[in-house]
């Protein structure tokens, strides 16, 4: 699903990623662990080009996304991203947060289709043989209603349907993060990228967020998680990448990494955090 080939990223003189090569297959749940400054967040953020890599290739669904000409917005719609600091839109209610992107994009597509039809009709005026119009199977109201329904269903799933019309500033960290997750889900992404989703949470709220991520994993969502929650990584991941100094030092099944790490750096790191 995602192939990464010799990915490098430098900030000035600092080499953050020194050549990452790996491949993410559909259905995999990949946990990226490692000390801070090892480049794990940078690597994750390169996957949907929140950071522009310095060199290397990222192939998503058979298309290179590093290329300047690539429609990065179209790719990002298929890659949900969850941030450490939630980043809910502060000027929108919870429901608006979830509905904004799907509604905007669907309305834009509808508008484009309508313009194309208008153009075709205009051209048809001067043609004997009429060109066919694009069928339009939806309307503005229908798009909004459907998005609303989806959003409410997602909110119900996380038990926050009563918060639909409040602003994010009134929510707890755990609630914000769960809403951020369903906001990403509302786009029907093919893969979810989690950038330390529980690092900014109070300890008692970590559980509710991890539970939701675990549910998604059980449903078969492909996901990449940068995390410091070793227990969670071990339990949920199908593969663990240990990163250090801009390299993937070890790439293995969770049982192997956590019980029998081969590389001395991995052993040292795990002995400190476990």
């Amino acid at each position, binding site marked *: 699903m995602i192939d990464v080939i010799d990915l490098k990223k430098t900030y000035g003189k600092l080499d953050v990623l020194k050549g990452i090569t790996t491949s993410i297959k559909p259905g995999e749940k990949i946990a990226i662990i490692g000390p801070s400054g090892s480049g794990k967040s940078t690597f994750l953020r390169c996957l949907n080009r929140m950071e522009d890599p310095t060199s290397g290739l990222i192939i998503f669904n058979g298309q290179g996304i590093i290329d300047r000409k690539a429609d990065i917005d179209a790719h990002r719609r298929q890659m949900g991203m969850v941030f450490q600091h939630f980043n809910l839109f502060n000027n929108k209610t919870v429901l608006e947060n979830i509905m*904004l992107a799907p509604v905007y994009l669907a309305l834009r597509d509808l508008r484009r289709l309508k313009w194309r039809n208008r153009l075709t009709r205009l051209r048809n005026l001067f043609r004997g043989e009429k060109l066919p119009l694009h069928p339009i199977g939806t309307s503005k109201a229908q798009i909004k209603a459907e998005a609303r329904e989806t959003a409410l269903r997602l909110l119900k799933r996380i038990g926050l349907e009563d918060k639909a019309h409040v602003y994010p500033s009134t929510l707890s960290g755990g609630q914000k993060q769960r809403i951020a997750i369903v906001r990403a889900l509302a786009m029907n992404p093919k893969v979810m990228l989690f950038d330390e989703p529980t690092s900014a949470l109070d300890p008692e709220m970590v559980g509710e967020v991890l539970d939701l991520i675990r549910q998604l994993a059980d449903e078969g969502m492909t996901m990449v998680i940068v995390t410091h929650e070793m227990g969670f990584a071990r339990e949920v991941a199908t593969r663990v990448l240990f990163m250090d100094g801009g390299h993937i030092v070890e790439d293995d099944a969770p049982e192997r990494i956590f019980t029998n790490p081969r590389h001395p750096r991995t052993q040292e790191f795990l002995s400190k955090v476990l």
Partner: protein
Amino acid sequence: MGNFDKKLERFREIFIEHDGYVKVLTGLQNTIYIAVAGLAIGILIGTLIAIIRVSPKNNGLAKMLDGLCVFYVGLFRGTPIVVQLLVAYYVMLPLIGVNLPALQVCVIVFGLNSAAYVSEIMRGGILSVDPGQMEAGRALGLNYRVTMMKIVVPQAVKNIVPTLGNEFISLIKETSVVSFVGAADLYVAFNYIGSNSYEFMVPYLVMALIYIALVAVAALIIRQLERSLRKSDRRH
């Protein structure tokens, strides 16, 4: 102060019996018109400039536009508004051969002038919005422009309403120089009353009071606006 009553009487006479109040109302209308329309133009152009200035400068065109905006802001902040009015009315208009009423020229000049200040206010406002907001929008597949207009700018505007209010109040007061190009504002009206009654004490006093009242009303409107924009804040 013994003859203050007499002065008041002179003022009343010109103000009411010689249609002074018509001039004052026209002047008031023009003052408000120039300030409000000027601010509207200022916000429009200022936001545009601010967005150009905070956008990533990753190609030649973006760099050129940015340079142009810096030059524009420097130009309008670097000269007094009176000079700008005079140059616009007596230099630019004849040069390009257009004939515009003084009032329209004032609106345009005040708008362009205000745009320079608003752009800096707005730029600060945009930079004060958490970069995570932009990232979240982009990560959902919205493009830079849409995220800017739907997410970042509304939050920036909310943050800068008090400062923008300040700009509006300055604008109201600065309009008192438009008589330099012959537009009829409050000053022109009260000067007319003073000249006709040979007595300037009361007219200028009343003028000052009207400006104070105007600014007080503006401050009230700004406070209401601030309050209604605070909806999404915890500070209800």
